[in-house]
């Protein structure tokens, strides 16, 4: 059993630890792994090409961008913000907890396409949560606002991951079943899906627990900001320059 292909894994771990650009790290790792496995260069390139074509669908989220972009240009985020400001008793914590619940429940019945980072978190959840936080706590320091935005994306992921594994027809359940079948163990999808419930409940309790403490933390961070003599300027809602290069 040749262990040379593990060089590719080492490249990945090292590359990420050194904070090199992820695209470069992954490209180098593909080449290193292929060479270590003694694949001829042409065959390696063909493999890369075929894998690319097979996984092109991972770019499909790009199709939502023109729609969202057009709506943003006409004030989608401003509207979401204003709507939140007009509601009573809405806080960032309650909004995110509600979103977590809805996301997890809809994922459990297979409606995973109902929400997502491009179509829900960016245009709606993030501006609404920021607006709710500022409504309750006043202007927030920049770092606090960015952390809150990241928490919105995090909440979407947690709700999705720990709801969709309960969905019988979902890939994970079928993968587990197929794997055990290949190894001589017969299981029913229902058996597998059911044992996902304890973890799903724990995931909800843990993350909702963190969200419960969110208001206290925001209050602390906001009071630190108002202790300063000047209020920090708002980040514009125009587009930024993407992820910083390493």
């Amino acid at each position, binding site marked *: *059993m040749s262990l040379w292909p593990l060089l590719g894994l080492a490249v990945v771990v090292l590359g990420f630890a050194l904070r090199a650009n992820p695209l470069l790290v992954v490209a180098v*790792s593909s080449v290193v792994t292929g060479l270590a496995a003694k*694949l001829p260069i042409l065959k390696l390139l063909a493999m890369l090409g075929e894998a690319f074509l097979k996984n*092109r669908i991972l770019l499909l989220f790009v199709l939502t961008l023109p*729609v969202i972009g057009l709506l943003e240009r006409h*004030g989608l985020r401003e509207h979401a913000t204003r709507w939140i400001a007009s509601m009573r008793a809405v806080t960032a914590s309650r909004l995110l907890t509600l979103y977590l619940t809805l996301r997890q429940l809809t994922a459990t019945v297979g409606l995973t396409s109902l929400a997502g980072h491009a179509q829900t978190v960016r245009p709606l959840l993030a501006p609404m949560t920021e607006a709710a936080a500022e409504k309750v706590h006043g202007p927030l320091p920049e770092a606090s606002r960015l952390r809150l935005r990241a928490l919105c994306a995090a909440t979407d992921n947690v709700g999705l*991951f720990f709801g969709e594994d309960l969905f019988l027809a979902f890939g994970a359940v079928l993968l*587990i079943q197929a794997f055990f079948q290949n190894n001589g163990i017969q299981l029913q999808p229902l058996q597998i899906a059911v044992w996902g419930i304890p973890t799903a409940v724990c995931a909800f309790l843990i993350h909702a627990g963190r969200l419960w403490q969110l208001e206290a933390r925001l209050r602390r961070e906001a009071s630190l900001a108002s202790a300063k003599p000047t209020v920090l300027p708002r980040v514009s809602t125009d587009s930024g320059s993407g992820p910083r290069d390493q």
Partner: protein
Amino acid sequence: MIRLQYVLWMLGLVLIMAGLLGVRDRTNSRRWTTGGFWFLLGLLVMLGDLLPPALVGAVVLLLALIAGLGGVKGSSHQSDSSTTGGSDSRRERARRLGHWLLFPALLIPVLTLVGVLGLSRLRVGGRSLLEGGQALTLVSLGVACLGALAAALLVTRESPTRVPHEGRRLLDAIGWAALLPLLLAVLGQVFAAAGVGSAVASLVARLPLESRIAAVLAYGLGMASFTMIMGNAFAAFPVITLGIGIPVLIELHGANPAVLGAVGMLTGYCGTLMTPMAANFNIVPAALLELPDQHAVIKAQIPTALLLLAANLVLMYVLAFE
């Protein structure tokens, strides 16, 4: 029949137009490499099937090189925001359009659902309207985006020529991160072909795991760590379950395979929350939300992930050996 191929052509078109507009943008110091990046990516998506795979692979490496060396830079889009008049004009438009703005955005998931649940059986002229099978969700998504775009144009009364500009604006915001999920999937296949999985499994099988606690810890932590390295739990699951799950936990200690499978996979998901290799969940959203720290989403997830990992290990120990 509306095939997946047509949806891919639409996708390629969006990317190609972003590329062409990018090249024309003289305010961008890297307009040729940026525009070239999107253009080539769009070409591959649209016409990749017609090219020899080795050529596609070479271009993919080229794209990774361009982006990795900083060639993909978004412009400041000053010209775009000045024509809208900036945020005050947007607030005014938001006031006028109100909840109508939400309607096209919500059409995306709604139409996707309609396609998946209902239209799959619709027949036109003797043939199905939408391509069936696994492609159904994707074709529905494509059609839904088209429908939502039409609705958005109606609601905002905007000219269709505006559409490529807005698409490009958001693509620029995401930047090179858009290619990362795809490239990671490619890496996964290379790993599989090179036997990385079996190599890891053989290493893992040499661990001394007589006690039940050690075995559960090794399996759970192994799933989480290997998921962090591979970027997705599906790739880690067969390797770690084959290496530790079956021989040690199931055969030696008599664990329930259904529990092991379910809780094991979910332990892998805890790893997914913590790794930059799961780019479409962790890195792309950070770029979409315009966060300067590309690991911000991961940092927001780590407390949940670690607590849940611990909870899962306990659940596995308690539930698998009834």
